[in-house]
C-alpha cells in the first residue's frame, strides 16, 4: 500500500552543508520518491565580469570561483588562454603547477573526509582529519603565501618561484600526512559503525553514471576508469599514477576512491619534487588572445571544462566554466530516489558538492 506523499524541504541552511543548496524531497513515509534540486543561492554572475576585467585580471576572478578548488580554476582558465595565444610555459612552471594542483587535491579530499565524518556524526574523526589538512595548508602557504586562495598562477607561468629547499621540506611532511590518513582510513573503511552508514547506501550503476554525465570520484566509484589527468596537461604526462576505481558504486566506494587518491596525489607530488627542472618560471606574453578553446581538466571533484571565446581585444567575449558538481547533480537526484530520509544528508555529502563552483 502506498503511503501518503509529502514534500520535505532540505536546505538551504542545513547543519551538514557548509554551503546552501535546496532540495525538495518528495517522500512516501520514510522513503524518498523523488528529489528536485534548486540552486541559485550563491549565484554571483562572475562569468559576466569579463566585460569589466581584462583577460589578465580574470585569472583572479577565476580563482575565486571556488575557495576549495581555487588553484584548479585558475589553472583551467590560464591553460585555455595559453592555448589560444600559443604560449608554452617552462618545464619548471609546469611541474610547480602540477605539484600545487595535487596539494589542492589532497587538501580537498581530506576536507571531504572530515565533512563526511561530521555528516555521520563522528566529530572526533572530523577534527582528526582536519588536523592533517592543516599540514597541507602549511605547505601551500610556504609555497604561495596563501592558505586557500593563492594567486600564484598567471598567464605565461607563475608569479613567483618556489625555492627548491622549501619543496624538499615538503617530503617529510607528506610522509606524516600519509601516515595520519592511513590511521584514519582504518576507521573510514573498516569500523562497523561507519560501515553501517556507508555500505550499500546510494548505489549508482555504471550505466547510469555514464548516462547522467557524472564526473570524478563519483564516476570512478561506479567502475568507470576515466581521469582527465590522463590527458597529460601540465606535467601529468611526465609522472606515473594510477586511476582509482571501485565497482561497488555505493557511498563506501566513493570514500575508498577518495582515500586512495590522496595517496596517489602524495606520490605525484614526490615525483614532481624529484624531477623538478631548474630553469625559469615565466615566459612573457605579447598581444591579446584571439580565438576560442576549451580546456578539460580533472578537479578534485571531477572533470571541469573551461571555455574561452576571445576576439583579439583586451576584454575576452566569454568565459564559461562547467564545474563537476553541476554535472553530478542529475546523478545525485537519481541516487536519492528510494533512499531513507535519514540518509539524505550523507548522500548529498558523498558527491562532495561544491555549490559556489556550480553556481559561479
Amino acid at each position: 500500500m502506498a503511503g501518503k506523499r509529502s514534500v520535505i524541504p532540505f536546505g538551504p541552511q542545513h547543519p551538514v552543508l557548509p554551503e546552501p543548496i535546496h532540495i525538495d524531497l518528495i517522500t512516501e513515509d520514510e522513503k524518498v520518491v523523488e528529489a528536485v534540486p534548486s540552486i541559485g543561492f550563491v549565484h554571483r554572475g562572475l562569468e559576466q565580469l569579463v566585460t569589466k576585467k581584462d583577460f589578465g585580471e580574470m585569472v583572479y576572478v577565476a580563482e575565486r570561483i571556488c575557495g576549495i578548488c581555487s588553484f584548479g580554476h585558475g589553472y583551467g582558465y590560464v591553460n585555455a588562454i595559453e592555448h589560444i595565444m600559443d604560449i608554452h610555459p617552462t618545464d619548471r612552471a609546469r611541474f610547480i603547477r602540477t605539484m600545487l594542483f595535487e596539494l589542492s587535491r589532497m587538501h580537498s579530499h581530506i576536507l571531504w573526509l572530515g565533512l563526511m565524518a561530521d555528516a555521520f556524526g563522528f566529530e572526533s574523526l572530523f577534527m582528526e582529519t582536519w588536523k592533517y589538512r592543516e599540514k597541507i595548508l602549511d605547505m601551500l602557504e610556504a609555497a604561495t603565501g596563501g592558505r586557500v586562495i593563492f594567486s600564484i598562477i598567471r598567464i605565461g607561468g607563475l608569479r613567483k618561484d618556489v625555492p627548491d629547499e622549501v619543496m624538499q621540506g615538503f617530503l617529510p611532511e607528506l610522509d606524516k600526512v600519509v601516515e595520519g590518513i592511513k590511521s584514519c582510513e582504518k576507521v573510514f573503511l573498516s569500523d562497523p559503525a561507519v560501515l553501517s552508514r556507508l555500505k550499500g547506501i546510494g548505489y549508482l550503476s555504471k550505466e547510469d553514471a555514464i548516462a547522467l554525465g557524472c564526473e570524478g570520484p563519483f564516476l570512478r566509484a561506479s567502475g568507470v576508469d576515466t581521469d582527465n589527468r590522463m590527458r597529460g596537461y601540465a606535467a601529468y604526462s611526465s609522472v606515473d599514477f594510477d586511476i582509482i576505481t571501485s565497482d561497488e558504486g555505493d557511498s563506501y566506494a566513493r570514500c575508498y576512491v577518495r582515500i586512495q587518491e590522496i595517496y596517489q596525489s602524495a606520490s605525484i607530488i614526490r615525483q614532481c619534487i624529484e624531477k623538478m627542472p631548474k630553469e625559469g618560471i615565466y615566459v612573457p606574453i605579447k598581444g591579446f588572445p584571439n580565438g576560442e578553446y576549451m580546456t578539460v581538466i580533472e578537479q578534485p571533484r571531477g572533470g571541469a571544462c573551461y571555455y574561452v571565446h576571445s576576439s583579439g581585444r583586451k576584454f575576452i567575449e566569454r568565459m564559461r566554466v562547467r564545474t563537476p558538481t553541476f554535472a553530478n547533480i542529475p546523478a545525485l537526484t537519481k541516487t536519492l530516489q528510494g533512499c531513507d530520509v535519514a540518509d539524505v544528508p550523507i548522500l548529498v555529502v558523498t558527491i562532495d558538492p561544491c555549490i559556489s563552483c556550480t553556481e559561479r
Partner: protein
Amino acid sequence: MRISKSPWLLHYDGSSCNGCDIEVLAATTPRFDVERFGIINTGNPRHADIFLCTGGVNSQNKDVVRQIYDQMPDPKVVLACGICACDGGIFKDCYNIMGGTDTVIPVDVYVPGCAVRPEALIDGVVKALKLLDEKAEKMKRGEYKSLTSAEYEAARRQDAAEEKNNA
C-alpha cells in the same frame, strides 16, 4: 578579558566562494580551536548567539539571511567574515550581488581578508564576545533591544532619503 557566557555560533554562506567558509570551519578545528572560548558551532538559529555570515548578499538569499537573523534570540552579534561580506569584494560589480551583509542586516564586527584567515576570525569572535556581554548588560537594564531586519531596512531607507535631501 573575562568570558561570562559560552556563546554558540551559526554560520551561513551568503554567496561566498567557499574560501571563507572552510576557514570558518578550520577555526573550529584543533589548530585554531575557537571552541576554547566555550563556542560551539550550531546549525539552529534559535540556539545561536553569534552569526558568522560569509559572502555578499544576492536577491535570492537575502530573505534567508534576514530570516536566520530574526530567528536568533537577543542579545546577538553579527560578524561579516571576509571582504565579500564586508562590501562585496571582487564580486561587487557582478549583476547578482547587492553588496555586503550590512545591506540587509546590522553588522557588529567586520573581519576583512580574502580569504579571511582563521586568526583574524578568532580576533573578530573575541571582539564579538565583548559586545555580547555589553548588550546583555544593557538588556538587563532594559535599555537595549536589537533591530529586526525589517526595522533595519526602514532605518536604512530613511538614512538614504535624508542624505538625498541634504545633498
